[in-house]
């Protein structure tokens, strides 16, 4: 029998500790897209369309501007697909590719992220002939000159289509994340473009102020992203006494105000594409701006508003309880990469990070000889005692006290961990009789956001079962009743010859 009174006393924590993960700080991504490609106009006189499956290739409409204008960002490199040349501007790299390699990318303005697109294909083209992925377009400027082949990479190829789709969704997600961080950012400050008032905190206060005080509508703040930049642009224009709609300059502020009032120029010019990148609607589909989208889809929202009678709703609810899900409203929200940090768990006895708590428990079982599930069953620990055990171990490791024998003589982590891991990890655990770990202070979590605490349990079906059965019975009775009522009403209506419209 050991003497537990010699155990080093540990004071209860005032507040929980935090883990320090080596976080990669998520950077805010601004969309970079292709600039208007003006220079690469291809004039082809006579076309002989060469190989395999290709449709009629009309002269590429390089003059068409993309819907989202990029900023010529000097830090982005556009690598050439076929050699090791690279440029800093999309326009010049496309020129290079065309001139040097006779290579054309179809619908290049609709690619959201040209540099990753080029990089991906660069890897694909290593060691393979061009014709494996591209269609060949043969041209001949006049009868006497030789035939030259142009290679066209377009989304006929399913791989290409997938890449384009993926880039598009990535951009959309990153822009939504940016909007989300803007929305929850409590330190948002901005000045109104038209008067010297500054606003703090809530993004929508600026837009409502513009509408109410200056009668100028730029749209709801939820539809906007990079709001600060937009407001700065507007401020510049106002300072130059320029009307924001027709973009004519005036002599003074009062003349401008009169003009805007008279002509009702109280919104932004819809055809001006510099504003496109601030409105989320334009990121939905590449290559189309809001006008095209409106034409295409019209009123397609009707399928959400269908009339469903309440019996169908009850049946759906009943199916959900059974586990057959027809209402998939909530299925679309799946967390991607940001959850990797949140899901991660730290081992109790060493400092390794794991992707999730299951891995951590496996590791503890294999490496540290600490099988928590087994211990719970053999010692008959209930929920609260298990929590206490875990928090106790965490605390001991933090204070560099051995959780098994109470040894406090360690000065540095190295010797401490070597002690713990000695004798086949005998000291990775606690002694069952030790009353110290059953103290109530260990009900409070030692570390904040400790995923070990939320995931150590095996799920117990029985708690849920009785409730489910009762719900099921109640619901089926209700459905029968409702069905009967409905039948009665229909029968009465038939009898008195009323027809449903």
């Amino acid at each position, binding site marked *: 029998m050991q003497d537990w009174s010699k155990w080093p006393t540990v004071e209860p924590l005032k507040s929980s500790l935090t883990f320090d993960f080596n976080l990669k700080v998520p950077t805010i991504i601004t969309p970079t897209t292709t600039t208007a490609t003006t220079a690469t106009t291809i004039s082809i006189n006579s076309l002989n369309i060469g190989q395999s499956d290709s449709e009629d290739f009309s002269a590429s409409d390089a003059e068409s501007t993309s819907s989202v204008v990029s900023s010529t960002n000097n830090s982005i490199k556009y690598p050439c697909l076929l050699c090791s040349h690279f440029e800093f501007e999309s326009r010049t790299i496309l020129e290079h590719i065309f001139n040097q390699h006779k290579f054309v990318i179809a619908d290049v303005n609709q690619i959201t992220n040209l540099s990753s697109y080029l990089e991906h294909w660069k890897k694909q083209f290593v060691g393979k002939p061009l014709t494996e992925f591209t269609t060949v377009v043969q041209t001949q400027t006049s009868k006497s000159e030789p035939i030259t082949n142009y290679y066209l990479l377009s989304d006929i190829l399913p791989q290409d289509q997938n890449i384009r789709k993926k880039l598009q*969704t990535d951009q*959309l*997600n990153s822009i*939504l994340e940016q909007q*989300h961080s803007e*929305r929850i950012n409590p330190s948002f400050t901005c000045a109104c473009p038209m008067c010297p008032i500054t606003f703090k905190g809530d993004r*929508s206060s600026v837009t*409502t102020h513009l509408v109410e005080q200056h009668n100028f*509508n730029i*749209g*709801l*703040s*939820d*539809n906007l992203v990079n709001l600060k930049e937009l407001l700065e642009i507007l401020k510049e224009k106002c300072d130059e006494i320029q009307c924001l709609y027709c973009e004519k300059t005036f002599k003074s502020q009062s003349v401008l105000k009169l003009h805007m009032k008279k002509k009702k120029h109280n*919104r*932004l010019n*819809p055809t001006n594409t510099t504003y496109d990148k601030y409105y*989320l*609607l334009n990121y*939905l*589909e590449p290559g189309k701006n*809001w006008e095209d*989208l*409106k034409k*295409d*889809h019209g009123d*397609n*929202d009707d399928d959400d508003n269908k*009339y469903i*009678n*309440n019996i169908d709703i009850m049946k759906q609810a009943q199916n*959900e309880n059974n*586990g057959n*899900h027809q209402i998939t*409203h*909530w*299925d*679309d*929200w*799946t*967390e991607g990469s940001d*959850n990797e940090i949140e*899901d991660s768990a730290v081992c109790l006895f060493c400092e390794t990070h794991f992707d999730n708590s299951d891995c951590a428990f496996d590791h503890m079982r294999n490496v540290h000889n600490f099988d928590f599930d087994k211990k719970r069953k053999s010692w008959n620990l209930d*929920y609260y005692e298990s*929590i206490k055990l875990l928090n106790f171990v965490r605390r001991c490791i933090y204070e560099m006290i051995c959780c098994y024998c109470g040894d406090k003589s360690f000065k540095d982590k190295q010797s401490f961990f070597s002690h713990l891991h000695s004798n086949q990890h005998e000291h990775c655990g606690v002694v069952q009789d030790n009353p110290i770990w059953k103290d109530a202070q260990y*009900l*409070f*979590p030692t570390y904040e*956001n*400790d995923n070990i*605490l*939320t*995931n*150590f*349990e095996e*799920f*117990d079906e029985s*708690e*849920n079962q009785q*409730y489910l059965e009762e719900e099921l019975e109640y619901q089926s009775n209700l459905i029968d009743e409702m069905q009967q009522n409905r039948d009665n009403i229909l029968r009465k209506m038939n009898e008195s010859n009323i027809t449903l419209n």
Partner: protein
Amino acid sequence: MADTTTAAQADQKPTRAFGRQPQRGAPQRGGARPQRGAQEPKSWVPVTKLGRLVAQGLIKNIHEIYLFSLPIKEFQIIDRFLHLKDEVMKIVPVQKQTRAGQRTRFKAFVVVGDHNGHVGLGVKCAKEVATAISGAIVAAKLSVIPVRRGYWGNKLGAPHTVPTKVTGKCGSVAVRLVPAPRGTGIVAARVPKKLLQFAGVDDVYTSSRGKTRTMGNFVMATFFAITKTFAYLTPDLWREVKLIKTPYQEHSAILSEKKE
């Protein structure tokens, strides 16, 4: 039966038309819909029986409605009784395959709550983010549920934790809430923690199982779990309570008055 029409949508459509008319040519850019705050000037005309009773002030407390499990179809009813804060949890782009290519829309997930015993969750899909958010807030208000709080040990002070262990399941995700002593805080992953904060639960342990990466199912499972707090019959509820009439029956005279 007037009660079966989803009156919330009936309310929304007229405001859409109002907004679009003055703008010619550029509805999106000009902000077609009135701002969220500007809805006050339009007074609420109730469409359902319950709505009429609430508008006339005949129902004093939202718990009278919860007692009889009456379906609430108008979000203004909830607004009358509770001051709810809302927060957008996530906006997700979703795609649907159509004949003319793909159609992408935004889906907004919103949680509402008063941090003191009432929470709701809402989802809405729409072409514009602002529409999706306001629709989701309406859906969330319609789904508001009361949350029962209890004690871990001594019944001192205000209730701070769940009264019993409850579990909720949605899809493959199961979440279990366990009472915790005062001062523990909410021991849960980030998103369910937010939901529990909005519910007004101060201390609780959670245990989750299944593919918790499907955040939607994870959040719904916690929501079902806290719904069950009021469905659980604890011994202090054993005492029999006299039957009272439903509001429809009690105020049947007023309801059957014809409108002028």
